[in-house]
């Protein structure tokens, strides 16, 4: 009916091409929306810099230089992107089912501790490494899987429970690293015993970046294929759209909820494994460096799309890589990057309100719009 009214408003001939354009334009705008909102967030952050008496131009120039300017900065950025990819998948996979899991940090630290503790006693080279990675994935999967289980079986909100589990995981890590698993030789910084040379992960040939990056990219590809081409992925999308309808269809909602959380947690656990075996060389408090938190932002910015995660993770890793230089050159505190992330995060979430509404007919604000309101037609005419 609204469509008919809308068509009346325009002279006959012009309506047809315009209507076809209307089908394309919203999709193009929706596609560009993440970029637009990212730009809006960065613009908001620039205003913040100006208000606090700093030059945004200098800031972005430094970010470019330290994050993407040289071969060295690229390898630094890509090394930081590796755990972000895996941490973001820990948010993106459950998000497909409509869950907001934000406790990936817990899986990272426990996966790291498990790998570090195991690596301290194993000496079989590659076999040990595989065993360490597997254990880290199992521990991380169990940790986040528990949040999914609690959600399904007890109706506990997964956002709150996963974050509480992350705090518990960090306490457990500190306890293990300073107590039972501590290497007596680590004086200033309590750590597990250092891994042997054979239990360390090297760099990808030709790149000065460890194998975690390749694993992360492969994991993104695999998750994309899983969601895109398998019945499991299809079922997950249905559960995300309407859990009750999915249950009525006979889909195993519980197994999907718990499974997606466990898989995400396993990948986050792998991130901890790579931090230990490729970067730190032993498990210590550096594992809780906030990678899990940045991973949340990466996943939201990529709209929980596994392939979108790759460029977004590299972009945010570049910002993090430049943090040190920005601090020294511009005399800004390290928390400035947190402020930037906050601005971008708010911008992308608020940007969701524009999705599908630019140029579209009958804005789907439905329940709040009183019957007989002319607003939808007005929106359409614009």
């Amino acid at each position: 009916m609204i469509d008919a009214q809308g068509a009346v408003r325009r002279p006959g001939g012009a309506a047809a091409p315009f209507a076809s354009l209307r089908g394309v334009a919203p999709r193009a705008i929706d596609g560009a929306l993440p970029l637009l909102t990212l730009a809006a967030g960065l613009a908001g952050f620039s205003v913040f810099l100006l208000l606090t008496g700093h030059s945004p131009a200098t800031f972005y120039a430094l970010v470019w230089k330290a994050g993407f300017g040289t071969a060295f900065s690229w390898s630094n950025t890509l090394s930081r992107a590796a755990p972000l990819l895996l941490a973001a998948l820990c948010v993106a996979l459950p998000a497909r089912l409509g869950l907001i899991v934000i406790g990936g940090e817990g899986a990272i630290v426990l996966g790291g501790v498990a790998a570090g503790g195991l690596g301290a006693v194993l000496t079989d080279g590659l076999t040990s490494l595989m065993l360490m990675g597997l254990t880290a994935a199992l521990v991380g999967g169990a940790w986040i899987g528990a949040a999914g289980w609690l959600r399904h079986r007890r109706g506990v909100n997964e956002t709150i429970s996963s974050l509480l589990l992350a705090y518990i995981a960090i306490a457990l890590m500190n306890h293990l690293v300073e107590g039972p698993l501590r290497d007596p030789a680590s004086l200033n910084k309590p750590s597990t015993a250092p891994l042997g040379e054979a239990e360390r992960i090297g760099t990808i040939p030709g790149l000065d970046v460890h194998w975690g990056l390749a694993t992360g990219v492969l994991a993104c590809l695999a998750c994309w294929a899983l969601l895109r081409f398998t019945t499991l992925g299809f079922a997950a999308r249905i559960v995300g759209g309407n859990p009750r309808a999915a249950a009525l269809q006979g889909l195993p909602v519980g197994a999907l909820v718990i499974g997606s959380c466990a898989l995400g947690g396993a990948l986050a656990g792998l991130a901890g494994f790579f931090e230990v075996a490729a970067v730190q060389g032993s498990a210590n408090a550096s594992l809780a460096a906030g990678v899990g938190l940045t991973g949340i932002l990466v996943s939201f910015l990529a709209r929980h799309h596994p392939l979108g995660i790759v460029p977004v993770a590299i972009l945010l890793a570049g910002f993090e890589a430049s943090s040190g230089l920005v601090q020294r050159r511009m005399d800004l505190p390290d928390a400035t990057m947190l402020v930037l992330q906050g601005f971008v995060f708010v911008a992308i979430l608020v940007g969701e309100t524009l999705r599908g509404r630019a140029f579209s007919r009958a804005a789907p604000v439905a329940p709040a719009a009183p019957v007989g309101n002319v607003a939808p037609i007005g929106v359409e005419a614009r």
Partner: protein
Amino acid sequence: MSVGDIGWWGVPLAVLAGAIRVSVPFLFVSLGECLTERSGRVNLGLEGTLVFGAMSGYAGAVLTGSPWIGVLAAAVAGAGFGALHAVCCSLPRVNDIAIGIALMLLGTGLAFHFGKPFIQPPAPNLPSVSLGGWSSSSQVQAALEVNVLFLIGVALAFAMAWMFRRTRFGLVVRTVGDSDAAARALGLSSVRVRFAATSLGGALAGIGGASLSLYYPGSWNEGISSGQGLIAVALVIFARWNPIGCLGASLLFGGAGALGPALQSVGVGGGYHLIGAAPYVLTLVVLIVTSSPTRPLAGAPGELRLNR
């Protein structure tokens, strides 16, 4: 800190004293979240508001020399964050839980950014009230040195319970929280009511932050809050959206948080980190016990999207 003459009795006494001291941020944040959730929204960002409140409260007290101006600054800053949350969420298709996570990040980031210069200078602390004059034991007296904000918070809990039950504003908030359709039929603007409730809730969370930096522990640093704001959000569920319940839950969790230092003071030092995790474990257990997969929680506002 030695326990001295009363020996092991020092542990329950220290837990009681700690419960009163440590519960204040829990109390204010959970009351703020209670008000917000009663209007039908979840504000997970109160963790960030708490940290920013702690910073702005401390900064206000350092700059003006008056801790009360610090508390006021924290409340104003908290209200600002609450208002931002409310405005963002009033747009269609903006998820309140996700915005909360974003504001958690933004609030913490801004607090650390602006708080750097205030880590060193000392600020005047909030005054305390002595309730232990009846006892000759100096430890009992020390334990009953109560933060003024604690007394204000207790009064506020009862006032809020009364407000929900007996006042027009309370009824309006409850209506909006329980049913958008009913609110619209009555000609109420859910957007405006939620704006008011979320802003006021943010202000309370800001005051909770000020109690951290201006009374206990009484200093500003970047480790000042480790999830108290988030625990307080979970407490509201435990308290069944009842302000008096929030008071009880805050005292319980304050006691759990004080257990670690109390045990340490009598020489039980092992597993320090594990004892420190007690409040998180307790929160999780409480959530598991009180939640149910099949029926909505008793007392839960109908519009609340905690379990969509």
